């Protein structure tokens, strides 16, 4: 009993019914989302094993063949990202299972919002209809606004309001783009649009591209449209930081990549993505160096990683996409670990300065170790999974003969090393001030973090575990004609 439809149908059903489950027994509120996420993870893994490049899994909805009805596309590419999201969703649930700061009534809302943000992100990734993608993007962003403002003791409302303003701009641009596409082609199905995109005059195609690029770029935290991101990351509850890094930004990135690779065939689009990626990377990493608050630093570092992914996909080579997907996987796993462990390291500090975690290395040895593991991995040191992503990326740039870019990525890595090691230095080589009480993570949070840490080490030692899936995903993304023909098999007839 596996189908892509369950990624959406079951979280929504559970979210609607969760308040009623709470009336039966209070603990059900925490347990049932876990069962759901566990099922989603199994669903994703089984589907990912079933799907192959030449036979993506297509689910029709309401019994209408694709150009008429909405369809879901579980290709190796979208499936890979959906699997990463659903596996991390389970870990985030495990981490927040016994969340002390969330009381009963808020727990309902917290888990409802968590389920819907996960369903929305997966929906963006697996849908095959551009307006449906917009609807899921809105579900993701509205739950993100509410989650950002979830704690009252912080400036969450301010961050959420900024996010809401920027997000509303993005939805207007996307809607205008969709309106132009529908006005010319009379269809909203992505494969149908991709097949007929040449019917749109070239100049107009560029206009639509810009509208959608800006719209999705905001969600993907592309510079200069990412002013909201560090505030939202730092004001949201701890685990939600990792949700933003691993899920919502991935959903925006996916929409961007799908648009550039499948919907449009503008050659300068890749170059635009590459240039925006470089700007995002340089800008974010320089600002990260100057941050004094730990979560803002992590947020800017996260934006920098997204810049790396955009560079990789902007290269428009097979190796580039491969590297991009590897970095994307690393970013999701490692950034989650960093956010989750960091929020325990500065648990009792209100402002969460980097200086607040001085000497915590001795007070919370395991959490600090996991944080350092994540820091080593994200800068790309050899035995960890982050190394392979960066290595493939450097190989891809070298293959394209972009020496300047290669040098740039290397020098930005040095900047990364500087600010991460500054934090690690404070963790281990400063005295514990005793200003803030130590908050030991409970077993469930510890388990979630240990699994993430283990993944980083295992994938670092045996990268072949995931390379075959990434290779399939790469082939699936490149093969645009196959995407169109598997959705619309009768295209040649009419």
């Amino acid at each position, binding site marked *: 009993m596996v189908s892509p439809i369950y990624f959406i149908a079951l979280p929504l059903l559970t979210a609607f019914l969760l308040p009623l489950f709470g009336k039966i027994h209070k603990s059900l509120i925490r347990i049932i989302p876990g069962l759901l996420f566990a099922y989603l993870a199994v669903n994703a893994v089984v589907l990912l094993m079933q799907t192959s490049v030449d036979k993506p899994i297509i689910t029709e909805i309401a019994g209408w063949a694709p150009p008429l009805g909405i369809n879901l596309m579980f290709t190796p590419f979208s499936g890979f990202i959906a699997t990463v999201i659903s596996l991390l969703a389970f870990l985030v649930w495990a981490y927040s299972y016994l969340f002390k700061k969330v009381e009963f009534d808020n727990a309902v809302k917290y888990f409802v919002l968590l389920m819907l943000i996960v369903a929305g992100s997966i929906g963006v990734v697996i849908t095959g209809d551009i307006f449906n993608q917009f609807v899921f993007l809105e579900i993701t962003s509205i739950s993100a606004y509410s989650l950002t403002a979830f704690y009252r003791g912080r400036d969450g409302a301010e961050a959420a309001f900024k996010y809401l303003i920027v997000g509303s701009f993005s939805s207007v641009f996307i809607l205008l783009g969709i309106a132009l596409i*529908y006005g010319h082609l009379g269809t909203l199905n992505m494969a149908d649009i991709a097949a007929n995109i040449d019917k749109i005059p070239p100049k107009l195609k560029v206009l639509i591209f810009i509208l959608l690029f800006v719209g999705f770029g905001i969600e993907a935290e592309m510079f200069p449209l990412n002013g909201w991101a560090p505030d939202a990351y730092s004001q949201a509850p701890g685990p939600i930081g990792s949700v933003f890094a691993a899920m919502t930004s991935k959903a925006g990135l996916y929409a961007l990549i799908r648009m550039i690779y499948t919907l449009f065939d503008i050659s300068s689009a890749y170059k635009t993505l590459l240039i925006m990626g470089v700007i995002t990377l340089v800008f974010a990493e320089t600002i990260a160096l100057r941050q004094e608050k730990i979560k803002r630093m992590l947020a800017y570092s996260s934006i920098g990683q997204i810049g790396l992914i955009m560079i990789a996909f902007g290269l428009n080579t097979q190796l580039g996409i491969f590297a991009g997907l590897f970095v994307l996987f690393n970013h999701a796993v490692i950034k989650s670990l960093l956010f989750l462990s960091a929020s325990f390291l500065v648990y009792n500090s209100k402002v969460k300065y980097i200086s607040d975690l001085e000497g915590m290395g001795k007070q919370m040895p395991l959490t600090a170790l996991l944080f350092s593991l994540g820091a080593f991995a994200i800068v790309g040191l050899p035995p960890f999974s982050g190394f392979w992503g960066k290595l493939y990326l450097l190989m891809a740039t070298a293959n394209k003969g972009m020496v300047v870019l290669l040098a740039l990525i290397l020098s930005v890595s040095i900047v990364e090393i500087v600010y991460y090691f500054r934090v690690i230095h404070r963790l281990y080589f400063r005295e514990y001030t005793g200003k803030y009480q130590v908050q030991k993570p409970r077993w469930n949070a510890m388990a979630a973090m240990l699994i993430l840490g283990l993944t980083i080490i295992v994938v670092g030692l045996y990268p072949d575990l995931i390379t075959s899936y990434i290779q399939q995903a790469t082939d699936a993304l490149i093969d645009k004609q196959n995407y169109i023909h598997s959705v619309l098999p009768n295209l040649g007839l009419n």
Partner: protein
Amino acid sequence: MSELTINQILTYTFYGTSLLLIMIGFYGVLTKKNLIKIMLSFSIVDSGVNLLLISIGYINNGTAPIFSPSIMEKIHKGISVQMVDPVPQALVLTAIVIGFGVTAVGLALIVRLYRHHNTTNIDEIKNLKW
């Protein structure tokens, strides 16, 4: 006036008005300092986008896409009936509801910001750096 010029005028009226609404709204969002004014401006932007979508779906001499008894009678008599495009209407229904949801969340945030900072001026709410 001939059918053609009327069509030309209507093109400019509908597309021009809706895009003007969007731009007026954007101007309000970008220049106004009051949080409630910003949300009001966004609701104008939304209205503009919705009008744009509906105008794209209009077809000359079309009827509303409903097979009411009177229309069925016409069809049985063999008179051809042209209906306007139903898809943009469905999209706008969705867009209106989404817009309402976003507005409600935004206003709730404004109330909380006001209780926290005792102002609705965006310049005075600057605990976080942009």
